[in-house]
């Protein structure tokens, strides 16, 4: 009797899951596999027709000798590395502020949710206006307080353009990561702080010995997620700089788009996309490993 009930529950379960899995197979797994196959071919789009020809690892060999690819890889390494460090530190700071009795007002939660909800494109358009060389408010502000003597073309030089891209993306990313960290901070048991207090720990000591160790998992997850998210930044580059000046802001993601949909070199574009996929895959595996439920030994 119990087995039949169990069997029925199992059958219904599979029936419930199957439609979603079929859809995901069609729009995720099929394209991923096909993307790997495309990278092994010369695929060109001409006159609306797609021509395909197997060339083995040709596209990947071409990657290695392509200076534009290496430039984009370097840009991406700098952008993602700096972004993760800045977002993690600022978010932790913001989360600590909002966890303080003075920062618990609901107003600050609204302040965090608004930048998250703003469309990346609208955000990029807004910052294009803020950074405008002739009338932008950043130039006006900095000049009026004497930081600069002349208006700057912020997006005009390679180093400055890449860093402003970084700042704008940090602005957009901090709120959400701060929310993740705030949720983590609120799960640190008060009894631990009490115990630290009884042992005579000051605020700094209890931050080092209670907050940081219990937050280690949350911070690790936030770092991995933010790295993954930084690899997909596209809208900002598209609206603010289109990869310029001199490819200084061409991130890998944008390069794959440009090669595929502007130069119509679909095979080579897929090869670049595969590199991004491989990076993300490793990071996603790390993320899953961090979250995977384990037997907690010694707890309770």
């Amino acid at each position, binding site marked *: 009797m119990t087995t039949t009930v*169990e069997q029925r*529950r199992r059958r*219904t*379960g*599979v029936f*419930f*899951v199957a439609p*979603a*899995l079929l*859809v*995901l197979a069609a*729009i*995720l797994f099929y*394209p*991923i596999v*096909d*993307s790997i196959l*495309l990278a092994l071919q010369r695929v060109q789009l001409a006159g609306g027709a797609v021509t395909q020809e197997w060339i083995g690892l040709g596209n990947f060999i071409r990657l290695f000798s392509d200076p534009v690819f290496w430039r984009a890889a370097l840009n991406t390494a700098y952008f993602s590395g700096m972004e993760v460090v800045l977002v993690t530190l600022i978010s932790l700071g913001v989360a600590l502020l909002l966890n303080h*009795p*003075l*920062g618990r007002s609901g107003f600050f939660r609204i*302040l965090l*949710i608004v*930048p998250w*909800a703003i469309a*990346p*494109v*609208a955000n990029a*358009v*807004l*910052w294009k*206006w*803020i950074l405008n060389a002739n*009338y932008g408010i950043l130039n*006006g502000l900095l000049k*009026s307080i004497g930081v600069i003597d002349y208006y700057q073309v912020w997006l005009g030089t390679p180093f400055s353009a890449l860093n402003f891209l970084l700042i704008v993306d940090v*602005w957009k990313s901090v*709120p959400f990561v701060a*929310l*993740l960290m705030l*949720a*983590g901070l609120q799960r640190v048991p008060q009894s631990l702080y009490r115990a630290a207090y009884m042992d005579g720990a000051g605020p700094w000591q209890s931050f080092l010995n209670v907050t940081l160790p219990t937050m280690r998992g949350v911070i690790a997850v936030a770092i991995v*997620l933010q790295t993954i998210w930084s690899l*997909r930044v*596209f809208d900002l580059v598209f*609206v603010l700089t289109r990869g310029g000046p001199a490819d200084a802001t061409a991130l890998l*993601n944008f390069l*794959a788009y440009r090669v*595929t*949909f502007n130069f119509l070199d679909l095979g080579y574009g*897929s090869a670049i*996309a*595969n590199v991004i*996929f491989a990076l*993300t*895959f490793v*990071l*996603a595996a790390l*993320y899953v490993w961090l*979250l995977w439920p384990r037997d907690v030994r010694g707890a309770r």
Partner: protein
Amino acid sequence: MTFARLQQGGPPRQAIVILGLVLFTCWSAGPVIWLILSSVLEQKALIAQPPDLSPQNFTLDNFSTVIGAAASLGRGIINSLIVAVFSTALALALGAPAAYALARLPVPRADNISFLILATQMLPGIAIAIPLFILISRLGLIDNVLSLGIVYLSFNLPIVIWILRGFFLGIPAGIEKAAAIDGAGIFATFWHIILPISLPPLSAAAVFAFVEAWNEFFFALILTRQQAQTTPLVIANFAGQYQTVFGQMMAAAVISVAPVILLAILFRNQIIRGFADGMMKG
């Protein structure tokens, strides 16, 4: 020093906290306030240094001009609405039963499937965009709002499943047992018992999926041409064409972000709980 006093800190620490909160408020709200101000100021006042904020310079002309001049914006908003509603509804219809089964029913390898689904949510669009572009071109479905909505399931369905699974895992087993004793089958339990008590996480998942679909740019860029253009594309085109009419550019941006910002503010607590917790727990 009492414990509560310790947590609050002395006057120096409170001063630092207040300073930090003020800085954070300016940094977060500054650009958003400037966005709104720019959209309601006349061009002359806007490009004056410093911007002239006297009351006679405030106007709604930017909005009426943008709405009147650009038919593409109206079409973009309608397209965005269709794509976002369609994709969200599908994600919920497919995702809610799947999440329930993965959390509560003896599906083989349920944990592995769940984490695989979570991992796919991390994929960058470019990893699947090229084959999807070729496939959709061959089917003749480029520039079609419904095909765009289905592609959006690639990120919306995983996240809906993940948010709901987290909630379903926490439902006490007694509720299902009581339903079973009353003679309810699995379908009836899911439909009459589980779904009604899941309205908060369902709305969080719905708002989340809606916002993501409304804001999406990359797939819209490669899979639409003219008829199916969504709002972010229209805004990006504006930024190229109307470079110098800053007020109108900002008015268009305000129109495009206002609906989702309102949604996000209204549902902020559900979003924060559903997503922030969902991304942190296995």
